[in-house]
């Protein structure tokens, strides 16, 4: 606690706050633009933060993640095109509100719900991560190997429509992680003599290629449709249509509370994603309502429920990352690279070794929530204009930033080749329905999976019956099998339900991409 107070003292300086504000503002802008999500924003921005102090850099990146999650509501409400899939539920009632001339009211409620959800979930992260980390030290290589195996299967099964494709993508991710020097013998593997590959494939150019460049290629393919989707929306004449009244607050607060709780739980479980959180929260609020039939015609509670859950997922998805070093989402996976690069190794030891730095990051995260409120209120008119920028102007700017970001990772042109390679892979994984989420998480946990597996073989003396001495590992292996069987059964049903939800969420031609959580 004393660390947290000192953390606020460290963070509440003009320089830090300006960078956090830039991060949130950038995120909000990116989120508002269709196709540019939080993962994209964070991936491009990591190399740009090399020159900042660690806490400032991490806070800026987390600000981008938070800002873009909130910003995606802007295009959902104004264009009926969610900036990110997780705001699809926001569009269900937000767009009808905008058509009724209540765009400003909907935008403001979306922002308030986002900020509240985000702030409370950050408090939850602070409360949960350190105690969980204390238990993590009881876990040895055998147990860790089983847990990693379980998370990968779980994520592979949930991300995207097909479990087989999800698992294939995850396995490919692990495969690409094996490129480079073998850690025990120092022998290069699959580098084909390229010295640049000795240190392995770098996550940043890979993530920029898979997430940003590939997405821009997809967006370029439907540029016309997106440009023509922009439609003028007039504000209503009643001043109450432009602000959130106290009666609106009374109606929406329970929805926000539920949304925050649902989003937090969904965030902690790996692989579920912000879309699941926002749709689940929207569904619960609708079911509890006295007038469920009115949803979809412009209910403010719907916007509040969806956005609060959507934003609560982001901080709570850092709980497994901070406590155990296991990334539960793409943003968390990309943040691992940033944290390590800035001298903080996520995992249980982080709390004992650098309590002050962790507390500083917590303080910066809380500050980012409040800054988001300010930036959102001031900037909503501006962001409303930004989303109308034609795609043909956005795409070249983003591609330019991608190249800079990839190049800065190693100061070598090789990184740009890596980026292009994975851009092609990312493009086809989108077109063919392979989950790049699972791929990236597989890539990030790959080295640890390999190491713990090898350690397990040594500890068990190559004798599977010795597993009996590791009940935790056995439990997770059983869970893995159960998950595979369970998801295989429910996957076909889920695919049908999701395609229905996607059709309801977007009446315009933009296809709902799978969840890049």
């Amino acid at each position: 606690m004393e660390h947290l107070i000192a953390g606020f003292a460290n963070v509440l300086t003009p320089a830090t706050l300006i960078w956090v504000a830039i991060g949130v503002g950038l995120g909000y802008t990116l989120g508002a633009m269709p196709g540019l999500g939080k993962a994209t924003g964070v991936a491009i921005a990591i190399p740009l933060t090399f020159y900042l102090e660690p806490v400032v850099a991490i806070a800026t990146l987390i600000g981008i993640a938070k800002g873009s999650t909130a910003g995606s509501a802007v295009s959902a409400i104004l264009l009926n095109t969610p900036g990110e899939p997780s705001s699809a539920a926001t569009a269900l009632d937000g767009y009808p509100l905008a058509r009724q001339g209540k765009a400003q009211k909907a935008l403001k409620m979306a922002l308030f719900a986002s900020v509240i959800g985000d702030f409370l979930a950050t408090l939850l992260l602070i409360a949960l991560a350190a105690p969980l980390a204390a238990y993590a030290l009881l876990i040895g290589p055998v147990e860790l190997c089983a847990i990693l195996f379980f998370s990968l299967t779980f994520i592979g099964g949930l991300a995207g429509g097909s479990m087989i494709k999800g698992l294939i993508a995850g396995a490919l991710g692990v495969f690409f992680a094996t490129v480079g020097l073998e850690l025990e013998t120092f022998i290069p593997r699959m580098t084909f003599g390229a010295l640049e590959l000795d240190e392995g494939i770098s996550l940043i150019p890979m993530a920029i290629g898979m997430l940003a460049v590939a997405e821009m290629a997809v967006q370029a393919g439907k540029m016309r449709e997106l440009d023509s989707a922009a439609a003028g929306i007039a504000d209503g004449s009643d001043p109450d249509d432009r602000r959130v009244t106290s009666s609106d607050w009374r109606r929406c607060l329970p929805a926000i509370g539920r949304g925050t709780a649902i989003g937090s739980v969904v965030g902690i479980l790996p692989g579920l994603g912000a879309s699941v959180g926002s749709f689940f929260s929207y569904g619960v609020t609708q079911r509890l309502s006295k007038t469920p039939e009115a949803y979809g015609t412009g209910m403010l509670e719907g916007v509040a429920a969806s956005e609060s859950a959507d934003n609560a997922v982001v901080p709570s998805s850092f709980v497994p990352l901070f406590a155990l070093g296991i990334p539960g989402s793409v943003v968390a996976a990309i943040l691992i690279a940033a944290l390590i690069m800035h001298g903080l190794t996520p995992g249980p030891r982080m709390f004992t070794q650098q309590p002050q730095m962790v507390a500083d990051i917590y303080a910066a995260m809380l500050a980012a929530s409040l800054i988001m409120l300010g930036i959102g209120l001031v900037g909503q008119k501006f962001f409303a204009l930004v989303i109308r920028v034609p795609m043909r102007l956005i795409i070249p700017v983003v591609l330019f930033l991608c190249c800079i970001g990839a190049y800065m990772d190693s100061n070598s042109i090789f990184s740009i080749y890596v980026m292009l390679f994975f851009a092609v892979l990312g493009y086809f994984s989108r077109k063919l329905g392979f989950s790049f989420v699972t791929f990236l998480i597989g890539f990030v946990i790959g080295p640890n999976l390999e190491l713990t597996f090898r350690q397990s073989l040594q500890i068990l003396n190559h004798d599977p019956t010795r597993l009996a001495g590791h009940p935790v590992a056995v439990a997770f292996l059983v869970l893995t099998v159960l998950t595979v069987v369970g998801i295989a059964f429910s996957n076909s049903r889920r695919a049908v339900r999701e395609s229905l939800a996607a059709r309801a969420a977007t009446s315009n031609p933009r296809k709902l991409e799978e969840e890049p959580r």
Partner: protein
Amino acid sequence: MTDIPKRHALQVMLAATLGLAMAGLTPAAGWADETYPTRPITLLIGYAAGGQTDLVGRGVARVLSNELGVPVNVVNRPGSGGLVATQVLQRAQPDGYTVLLQGHSVINADPFLVAQADFKPDDFEYAGMITAFQLSLATQKDAPFDTIAEFVEWARDNPGFTYGSLSPLARLYMEEIAEAEGLQANILPLQGGGDMINALLGRQVVLAWSGGIHYRYPDELKSIATTTTYQRTTLILPKGTPRPILERLSDALATAQDDEDFKRVTDSADVPIFYMNLDEAAEEVRHSYAANMEIFEAAGIESR
């Protein structure tokens, strides 16, 4: 909101500038040395967080940061007992913004053991040494042996025991003992002292070489043998780093000797502070490299 394309173009530019501002604020690599350092320094550690080298490294990072006035970020690049980090350093820009803190066995011993690691003393620059530590064979307090001889007796009756290895050298020690005495050992690769402590406390290994971090657990762990030679924690830089930068780092490192906090850190792992400046450090690396070459050749140990 009417559609005015020119205004929109401006807004995109504005959004892009926000991003570029981050890039634009940064000085180019290889900036003039008189002003060194002007931006954060990356301090590589060749082990995972939580071990003796990591502990000392974080202490050194704090001292350097205070002296030089820029953040010094500790970045763990575990693998092959520091060889991976050494290779990363070797290929880094020689601008003083990437440095490695590592026991000098990575240069004076590992190249004789690992064929792929062809490092020589002259492939690097040195900015000083700060601590000298001995390796100890650590085990659980209640282990049924107190000396190497008793361990070998015990190991004969317990084939398939697990031994934790942090480096090529640690692996070599056990392989030589096992071959000479006919023992059957499972060698568990570990990425750092933190992992080693967990493996010892969690009874996943019966024995491991420790750089001193196990002294923090006097109630749970004990040493059964200690090497007579010292490893020196050395601040290593890429070949071609300008001498003024090395001097600046060497002077900053020297202040760690009188730093109360740093002393507290090293005491906790029973590591004596033993400072050497840049020239003494370079001489020590060369001298010990030549001495080890004779030893390994005489013993007929070949790198692989």
